């Protein structure tokens, strides 16, 4: 985390601009959604839709798209600037070591860090870091916005989503174990191929084709057993996840429907919830995978010495 703090600090202006752009973009989207809800109310209530209202709606339609562009642009730019600082920090540190004590310094370890930990942290910064923080912002701001619209309906949406989050966490743990054993078997099978190719002249000279085929078949079947299990568990868990992810929407329609009938809310408010429901549930449901990805990123980052 020390390195991440350092990178954020070094690029604080661009990070600040990116955060502001993310806030503006989310606010713009929410205000736009609010006006879409208003439009729905006017359609249902057969009220006149005036030019002034349309102009405001059009304005927010444009601002929503433009702020989303700025959000993406500045978010990525800040992340790329951080990646640049990381690369330069590593090179500077390496140069200092190479020109001073040179203790524990070797080309292979310097290249290995650059090609693995640094490359992975660099790719994460450039491609994922911004998305994770963008979605986190969306999750937080959308929750606040929806709470301001209606507390009960927001809880109707949030509580089942949190339960799904627990399920996703559990299933991803279970699946990662199965995936790992399948990968181990695959590595063994690939090892047979590697050996056969490497020792090809010996296989030919000593007539070892049958032996190779037997060894390969054995490994192939072992991998197949694991891969079949892996495929079936994936089918089961993803299906359950698909069913569960529909529950918040169904509950929203059920509770929201009652509230509209009892005139606690207008239909436009329900439309606002329906429009924001997907981004909110997605950001919550993706939390475990973000956290594990972020953990891998910080581990990689901590292995890169920077200045």
């Amino acid at each position, binding site marked *: 985390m020390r390195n991440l703090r350092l990178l954020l600090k070094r690029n604080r202006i661009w990070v600040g601009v990116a955060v502001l752009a993310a806030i503006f973009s989310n606010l713009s989207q929410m205000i736009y959604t609010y006006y879409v809800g208003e439009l729905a109310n006017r359609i249902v209530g057969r009220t006149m839709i005036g030019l002034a209202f349309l102009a405001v709606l059009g304005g927010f339609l444009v601002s929503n798209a433009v702020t989303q562009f700025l959000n993406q642009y500045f978010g990525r730019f800040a992340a790329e600037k951080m990646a640049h600082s990381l690369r330069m920090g590593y090179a500077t540190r390496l140069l200092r070591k190479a020109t001073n004590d040179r203790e524990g310094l070797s080309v292979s370890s310097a290249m290995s860090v650059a090609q693995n930990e640094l490359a992975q942290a660099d790719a994460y910064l450039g491609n994922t870091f911004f998305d994770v923080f963008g979605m986190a912002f969306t999750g937080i701001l959308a929750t606040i916005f929806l709470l301001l619209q209606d507390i009960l309906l927001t809880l109707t949406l949030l509580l089942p989503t949190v339960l799904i989050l627990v399920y996703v966490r559990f299933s991803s743990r279970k699946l990662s174990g199965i995936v790992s054993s399948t990968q181990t078997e695959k590595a063994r099978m690939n090892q047979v*191929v590697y050996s056969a190719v490497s020792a090809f002249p010996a296989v030919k000279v000593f007539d070892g084709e049958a032996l190779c085929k037997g060894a390969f078949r054995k490994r192939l079947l072992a991998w197949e057993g694991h891969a079949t299990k892996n495929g079936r568990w994936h089918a089961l868990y993803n299906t359950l996840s698909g069913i569960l992810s529909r529950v918040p929407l169904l509950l929203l329609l059920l509770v929201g429907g009652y509230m509209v009938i009892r005139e606690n809310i207008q239909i436009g408010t329900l439309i606002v919830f329906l429009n924001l429901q997907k981004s909110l549930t997605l950001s919550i449901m993706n939390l475990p995978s973000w956290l594990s990805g972020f953990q891998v990123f910080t581990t990689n980052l901590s292995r890169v010495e920077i200045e």
Partner: protein
Amino acid sequence: MDRRVVRILKSLGLWKRFVVMLILRSPFDFLNAVLGANMLERFLRIAQQQDAQNLQRNFWSFLLFTVLLFGYNATIWATVSVRADMLFHERLRTRLFETMLSQTQQEMEERSAGDWITRLNSDVDKTANYLTEPINFMHRSIAIVNLVLSSVVLMILNAKLYLAAILVMIPFFFLGAVIVIRKIPTYRKKAQEAFATYVSWMEPIVNAGEAIRIFDGGQITLQKVEEASKEILRENMRAHRLTAFSSLVNIFSGNLGYLLLLLMGNSMMGSEVRDFAQLSKITQYRGEMMRSVMCVSNCQSRMKANLSGAIRVEEVLGKKSQ
């Protein structure tokens, strides 16, 4: 599907099995879209008509339909699809391995050991990924079925609104997914090359550290490393700028289409559009169309990358038949 992949499937005797699997899996997205659109329509209509008694019944029936639909998908996935996938791996890997063993030493030496290993391992994975992995051929087929059938439903529901949706969608899709996104791989490649240049500096920094110290070369060294690093930043930002622009276009066209449908639908209310609930259903199908178009576009680039593996696999299989 690419003819080379078809040839591979046919040579492995899995073509028919694969077609059956495709037929069984392809309607899933569309059926899910129908379920989602009807669910929204029913609930909104009930709310509008103040019919509280029907709310709960609807909830349970749509939950049941969801379970049945996803259950169907899981059954097909876990039985037919996984089995076909495994058979594909088993037959293709065995065939390639036996082909490799049947080569003479001279034939083997036409390719490096690394090349053979890549063809026998990761290229098989790529070929399988092309067929069944997410955001590849299977997903694209499912998305195409969804696109076509959603279009048909939307056209039946309201031809004028369908036309409006199409008129908004096509130019923006063309601008975003076809013109803008196409350039991204070029910038990505350049960024990768710049990253390779950056990494290549690590070795001389370590090896020539003493000379850099004595001849005070730290500044020029860091200057050159920075040039490479800035080149990575520049190329990546070119790609990001296009992604951001494409997202602007998508959001604008998505929202514009949605609003247009709501406003046009409002003017047709009571005649060509029954009520707000039906209008919402229409917008759902439009959303499905847009989603499918995006999915097809995303699948294209991944399929292209995986096809390179299939081509190399076919080369080895062709060697045997010669």
